[in-house]
């Protein structure tokens, strides 16, 4: 019923004309698949997963699939950007610093200009420091998420105090939505959103206690899916009100975003998908588009029984069942607070390269509703993308990226 109401009305187009546009700029991602976007995309494009059976008793007493980043490679990458006199920085902070440095190098933005804000999206931050068996000299306050953000912020001499979003597995997508709103309101010109989380025994033991981890690399939306796989990583995305400062050839704008709550259960998704449906509906409504205008959905797709079923229901209910969809969890696992930024960066690459990537681990349709899970690599125009996420606490979020029309 509401689909009809979504048609671009005069009001909507007037409204968007007077508002500042929010352009998506350079991204950077560090995952088990690589430290550059090209490395990551090359693996994803050719269907190579970063999920490996990991036998590390400091994480779990049995082998389990995980997407882990080599600590030696993090140190090496960090040594290329930082002098020995700086720091010390934690493992997670080093990943953020490398990633943020890269997006700044790719853009013409001086973070010291007073118009730039850093948003840190994370669930657990430097949680490795809580483990008494992990030797380190960091002060205890490094466990505070605001402290971690302040350390990163100071490294880049950003005068504005950073913002930290800790909203479970939607933290990254909420970071993008909040960043876009802060640019639109005129408060900041540029936003750096860096989402990051590391894999620790803390997190593995918790998900194991929920019995929500699969013994095999996860299989999103598949009939045989039996749980999620964990990963770690950092994804950083820069947004700006000024396209020319981003040094990007293409123009991609953020045109809608919304969060919502299921109001149903703290650790299980809604059975009906109503919460996610509300977030998707509101995000698309804000763009003034119809659901059919979306070319691609980057789904949350954790491969738990309940999440994927809930997501399928929400997508059908939002009128998006014909839109090709994938989940990246089969490549890089669930990277928690980083998932929203990392997966959005891959979605933006899909748009820039006009490529759709298959869902690793998916073989046989295993959810209700006839949603279109991408099962092979495809070249096609990807002009508008919806990114969705859901998390513990019943939270959901959705954001829409669009290639801007050529302006006369």
């Amino acid at each position, binding site marked *: 019923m509401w689909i009809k109401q979504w048609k671009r009305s005069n009001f909507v187009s007037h409204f968007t004309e007077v508002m500042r546009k929010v352009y998506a700029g350079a991204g950077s991602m560090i995952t088990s698949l690589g430290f550059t976007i090209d490395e990551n995309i090359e693996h994803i494009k050719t269907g190579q997963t970063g999920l490996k059976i990991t036998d590390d008793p400091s994480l779990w007493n049995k082998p389990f699939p995980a997407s882990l980043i080599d600590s030696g490679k993090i140190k090496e990458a960090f040594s290329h950007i930082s002098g020995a006199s700086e720091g010390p920085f934690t493992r997670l902070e080093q990943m953020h610093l490398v990633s943020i440095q890269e997006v700044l190098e790719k853009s013409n933005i001086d973070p010291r200009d007073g118009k730039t804000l850093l948003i840190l999206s994370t669930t657990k931050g430097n949680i490795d420091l*809580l483990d008494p*068996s992990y030797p380190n000299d960091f002060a205890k306050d490094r466990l*505070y998420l*605001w402290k971690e953000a302040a350390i990163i912020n100071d490294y880049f001499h950003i005068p504005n105090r950073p913002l930290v979003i*800790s*909203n479970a597995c939607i933290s990254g997508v909420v970071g993008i939505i909040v960043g876009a709103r*802060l640019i639109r309101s005129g408060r900041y010109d540029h936003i750096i959103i860096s989402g990051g989380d590391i894999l620790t025994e803390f997190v593995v033991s918790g998900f194991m206690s929920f019995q929500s981890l699969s013994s095999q690399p996860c299989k999103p939306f598949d009939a045989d899916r039996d749980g999620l796989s964990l990963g770690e990583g950092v994804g950083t995305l820069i947004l700006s009100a000024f396209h020319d400062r981003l040094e990007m050839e293409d123009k991609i704008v953020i045109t809608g975003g919304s969060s919502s*709550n299921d109001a149903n259960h703290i650790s299980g998704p809604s059975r009906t998908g109503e919460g996610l449906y509300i977030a998707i509906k509101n995000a698309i409504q804000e763009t003034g588009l119809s659901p059919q205008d979306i070319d691609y959905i980057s789904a949350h797709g954790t491969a738990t029984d309940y999440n994927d079923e809930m997501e399928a229901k929400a997508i059908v209910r939002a009128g998006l069942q014909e839109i090709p969809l994938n989940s990246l969890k089969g490549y890089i696992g669930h990277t928690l607070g980083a998932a929203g930024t990392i997966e959005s960066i891959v979605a933006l690459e899909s748009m820039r390269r006009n490529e759709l990537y298959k869902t690793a681990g998916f073989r046989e349709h295993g959810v209700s509703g006839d949603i279109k899970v991408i099962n092979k690599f495809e070249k096609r125009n990807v002009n508008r993308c919806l990114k969705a996420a859901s998390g513990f*606490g019943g939270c959901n979020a959705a954001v829409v990226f669009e290639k801007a029309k050529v302006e006369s």
Partner: protein
Amino acid sequence: MTNAITTYCNIKDWLIKIDGQTDFSSDEKEFRKFIRAAYRNYKTGYPKFFKMDNLSKLGFLTADILIKRSGIADTYAGEEIGIILSNSSSSLDTDEKHQETINDKDNYFPSPSMFVYTLPNIMAGEISIRHKIKGENAVFIFERFNPEFLYSYITELMAGNKLKCCLGGWVDYYQDHYESFLFLVEQTETVKRGKKAGEYIIFAPKNLEKLFKG
């Protein structure tokens, strides 16, 4: 369009103040006992409360007092109410408790009922479930209470017509140090129809700062 703070609640120093007036005090100087006494005093009537961690208990009870007194859950649709919370300690108190369950390999007992509370937004989930609140929700972490950000972000959400009402504020709990300050913001036009001038406070950073101090 302007917005108004229609009611607020502070819980700290073993006192509960509603709209600036002391409404409940207790001789219990241990958080667990204090919050249970408060739960009984306000006839909260929600057994799930006892399964929550201390951070969620604090946020839930503060919100429950405001939401029941104001009747917002009946006035507005679930989608029209947002929850924007903040604190300094995130879920560190429960993080430490979960870590204790995995430190000793011979006494290893991580539990899902504790692990779920190692996320600060679970308190927003608990409030949402109880009162069927489905609108915009987010949890921000600041070193200190940040009235400017809460003001500007909630104002932005309400101006975009996404929300007609928002529960906002600060709920912090770490090792028996606790402080909560939650407020309800509604559109001034709506408020004027039901309330006299003087019964609401202009939604502005300096007012938030003042009310936070209690």
